[in-house]
């Protein structure tokens, strides 16, 4: 058990720490939380992504990956350390102290979340349907199949073109351990849930003060589906982490004009990792790029757009290239299904213009966002409206904040469009996926809701 924790929990954390340590140095507990949260997610994403070319060249069972990659990383970081001066991170001082009641209620929510996570792990040791039917099963295929490993992407397997971040991270951990262990997937799930919470609270401390951080943690855990779903070993919570990390890194960059632009490079990497986790990540990349470009164009800040775009694109590029290579080389295509069967008998035009489809999708979105999604009396929309009622102030929001909210809206519109164009039975697809898709955006919604107004003095910002 300890070796599994070391390989799937501690190794990614250390790997991320190595790289992030070039850019930032936390000075107190809240900023350490942000540092740890980002280190785990980015470290695991980097290791897992580096494993893909290793797998293509030497095969998934080839030994020595961890040693080679860690050795190379330590060498690179030692060389780069002279070039970069890490900035110091400290939590922003609060204008008023955190309310004891808010802290107490948040701690209760935290205790409930921990209990829910353990209960769900116990109830479904192999995770939910998608976990055992393809995420974890593909990892087993890759680990066990020897030279036949490319057959893991046969069209006969389920979702053979799904990206590999989670699957590779499992195979890589098993490869390092020298054996299979179901506990690897569980530690990774726990790692992403904890990293999401840490990155959310830490970033709010850094940008808005500790009282917002407590509120952020409480608000995130108000939807128990977050922890229950994390324990079901699906990819939605990891994907939600990369969405959040991208918004956080963009906000850290935009928060202070003098800040190094490498934060945007890191944001591009995080967006790339989202696309390497699940197909929805590709919609996210388009949404965040679209929002930045459109808002910069309307503001006629083309020079700034170019400087920022280059760095973001540089961070994104390796994952874009890897995704493209993967899709073109490994998953084989299924034989064509007769047209009418493949599209449920509806043409593209019919699907887009059918008012009933729009109504069904809108009704489902409304129910899931505003009213009562899984395991809840009150949905996320109602909670956020209550929060807005409490904190709304007539003061202009920053350009960066408006841009991130626009990206989130574009992402939701992308999901809407995907349902509209889907050739599957619409009712079935909404029933089995909408709650998960909206859960991916929940940590980012909370972050952006709490980021809007700055109640704390703009002083001791980190530098």
């Amino acid at each position, binding site marked *: 058990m300890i070796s599994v924790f070391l390989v799937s929990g501690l190794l990614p954390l250390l790997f991320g720490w190595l790289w992030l340590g070039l850019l930032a140095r936390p000075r107190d507990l809240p900023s350490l939380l942000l540092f740890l949260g980002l280190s785990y997610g980015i470290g695991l994403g980097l290791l897992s992504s580096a494993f893909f070319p290793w797998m293509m060249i030497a095969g998934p069972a080839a030994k020595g990956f961890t040693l080679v990659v860690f050795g190379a990383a330590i060498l690179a970081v030692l060389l780069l350390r002279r070039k970069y001066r890490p900035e110091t991170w400290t939590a922003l001082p609060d204008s008023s102290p955190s309310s004891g009641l808010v802290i107490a209620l948040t701690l209760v929510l935290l205790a409930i979340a921990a209990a829910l996570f353990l209960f769900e792990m116990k109830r479904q040791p192999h995770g939910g349907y998608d976990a055992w039917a393809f995420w974890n099963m593909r990892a087993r295929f890759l680990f066990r199949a020897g030279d036949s490993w490319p057959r893991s992407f046969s069209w006969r397997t389920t979702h053979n073109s799904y990206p590999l971040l989670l699957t590779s991270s499992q195979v890589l951990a098993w490869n390092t351990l020298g054996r299979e262990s179901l506990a690897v997937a569980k530690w990774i799930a726990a790692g992403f849930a904890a990293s999401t919470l840490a990155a959310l609270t830490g970033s709010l401390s850094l940008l808005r003060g500790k009282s917002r951080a407590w509120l952020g943690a409480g608000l995130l*855990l108000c939807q128990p*589906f977050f922890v229950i779903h994390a324990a079901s070993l699906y990819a939605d919570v990891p994907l939600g982490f990369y969405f959040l990390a991208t918004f956080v890194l963009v906000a850290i960059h935009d928060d202070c004009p003098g800040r190094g632009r490498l934060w945007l490079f890191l944001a591009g990497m995080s967006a790339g990792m989202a696309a390497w986790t699940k197909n929805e990540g590709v919609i996210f990349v388009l949404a965040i790029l679209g929002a930045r470009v459109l808002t910069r164009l309307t503001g006629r800040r083309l020079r700034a757009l170019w400087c920022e775009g280059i760095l973001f694109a540089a961070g994104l590029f390796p994952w874009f290239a890897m995704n493209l290579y993967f899709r073109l080389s490994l998953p084989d295509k299924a034989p064509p299904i007769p047209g009418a069967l493949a599209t449920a008998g509806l043409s593209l035009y019919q699907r887009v213009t059918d008012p009933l489809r729009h109504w069904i999708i809108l009704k489902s979105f409304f129910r899931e966002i505003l009213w009562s999604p899984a395991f*809840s*009396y009150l949905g996320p929309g109602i909670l956020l409206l209550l929060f807005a*009622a409490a904190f709304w102030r007539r003061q202009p929001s920053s350009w960066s904040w408006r841009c991130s909210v626009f990206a989130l809206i574009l992402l939701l519109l992308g999901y809407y469009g995907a349902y509209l164009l889907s050739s599957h039975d619409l009712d079935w697809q909404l029933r089995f996926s909408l709650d998960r898709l909206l859960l991916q955006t929940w940590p980012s919604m909370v972050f952006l809701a709490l980021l809007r107004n700055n109640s704390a003095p703009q002083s001791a910002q980190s530098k």
Partner: protein
Amino acid sequence: MTKIRAILISIILVAGIANGLKALNWEWERRSDPDLVGEQERRHSPIRLDSQLPATVSYAGDPDALEHGDRAGFRLLQYTVAPILVSDRLDQEWLVWRGPDPKAGEEALRGFTLSRKLGDGLYLYHRGEP
């Protein structure tokens, strides 16, 4: 924090706790219900998911079932004996037969010996004489 703001924030967090307790109750009911306890262990028991079955098998079966690529059949195979990769060609040491009880003299089964029944309509064969 103003009084109204504190009240609204408390309402949000208490609603969150109510949501959490509802979820805990849901989990607890499923723990204590004998029909649901270990549901997953029965459906996808470690024997199926973690057994050391061969990594790659050939796949053959009832011609009717295999028509049109028989995607459903391959999925059934995945879900019941999960960690098995299937090969179109009959070139592997192990073979899985799908369909009704295999009849003696089936062309595809020539040279294979029944190892065991994996599930309804699924049989594992090993190359070689008994």
